[in-house]
């Protein structure tokens, strides 16, 4: 969907915050950021929802909330919505717990516990093993490297990984990656459906017009159904 997250090429979002360009800022600036990241990974590991559902949840934020909030508020919105809608934890329970707990005191930069529970060990293991996203293909790739393709004019309100600025753009297949699990099927049906993935190259004039201020090439990784042969 071309929601508030789909910002590639959009004007008017302003300059990069100068505070972000100062050297030495920790990548997790507040203790709640790392904790939100960790509990999200845990909920996924426990099977409450998957990564594609979590990304899609963020896409459903109100536009002004998306642009005005601190980054990990996006994760909080999505995880809270998913856990509520799936019946794990309701919004009201969170409201009530907030009132009970009062002001938090989170430890910044916690140390790794001396002994890890089986679940903690499993989580650290997941961090280093990852969760591969490729799948055996059910059909060979339709497009060869070098093929001229055009991005289809897709305005689906479901989750996909098609940046809006690439709609209808013509490009060239630069690489075949093989099949990866389809994000829409994963987000909406929680199924693993193989879908051929390609690296596609676009020119700046194709994307931004003959009057494009800068000249460069842009590469994006796009699924087969996002593409059609260019005439």
């Amino acid at each position, binding site marked *: 969907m071309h929601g508030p997250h789909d910002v590639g090429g959009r004007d008017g979002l302003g300059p990069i915050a100068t505070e972000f360009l100062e050297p030495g800022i920790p990548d997790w600036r507040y203790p709640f950021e790392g904790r939100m990241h960790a509990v999200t990974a845990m909920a996924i590991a426990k099977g409450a929802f998957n990564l594609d559902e979590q990304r899609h949840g963020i896409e459903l934020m109100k536009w002004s909330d998306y642009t005005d909030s601190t980054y990990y508020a996006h994760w909080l919105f999505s995880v809270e919505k998913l856990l509520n809608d799936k019946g794990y934890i309701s919004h009201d*329970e969170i409201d009530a717990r907030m009132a009970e707990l009062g002001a938090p005191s989170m430890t910044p930069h916690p140390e790794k516990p001396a002994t890890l529970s089986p679940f903690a060990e499993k989580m650290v293991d*997941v961090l280093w093993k990852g969760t591969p996203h490729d799948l055996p293909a059910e059909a060979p790739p339709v497009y060869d490297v070098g093929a001229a393709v055009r991005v289809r004019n897709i305005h689906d309100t479901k989750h996909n990984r098609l940046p809006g600025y690439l709609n209808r753009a013509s490009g060239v297949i630069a690489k075949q990656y093989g099949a990866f699990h389809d994000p829409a099927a994963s987000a909406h049906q929680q199924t693993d459906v193989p879908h051929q993935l390609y690296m596609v190259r676009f020119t700046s004039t194709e994307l931004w017009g003959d009057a494009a201020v800068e000249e460069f090439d842009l590469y994006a990784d796009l699924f087969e159904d996002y593409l059609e042969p260019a005439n």
Partner: protein
Amino acid sequence: MDWLSLPDVEARVNALESLMVEKGLAEHEAVDAVVASFENDMGPVNGAKVVVRAWTDPEYKEWLLRDATAAIADMGFTGLQTEHMVAVENTAERHNVVVCTLCSCYPWTLLGIPPAWFKYPQYRARVVKEPRSVLAEFGVELPADVKIDVWDSSAEIRYLVIPQRPAGTEDMSADDLMSLISRDSMVGTALVGTGA
């Protein structure tokens, strides 16, 4: 959303964690362990090791450019959001810069947690439209004849930029070379100098 302020978000995350622990979806000490792993064991030091090996071992560099997933796995740095990798090389003719316009996709085990500028909408919106101008804001002024390639991580492939090795570093030890390589240089928003 009534809770946009930092204190509100913090309080809500706190309540969420508390409830998740109660319902068996999380454990407090496991959260500490995951946070500690990210902060201590994952980070650009890992990426810099890959870059130094590529700089000093031509066969490794060729492998890295051909099959980054396998070459990075060989050094033990694949992992969550780092399962599928492509390495792109900066040269005298070409400069690479990476973005995730749709969210903040980033190779966690190799480079750590992405910096704020990578995650917020402003960089994501502009670098795919005016990369040279954005790079100038990061202090990267490229000669006009250097071609720029922008990589939008729109699927599960993650990108590592191999910065150019500066001239005059031929006799430097691996440790000294490591100290030259910044996180930003492996995303494409910085160049590597000699540290002189």
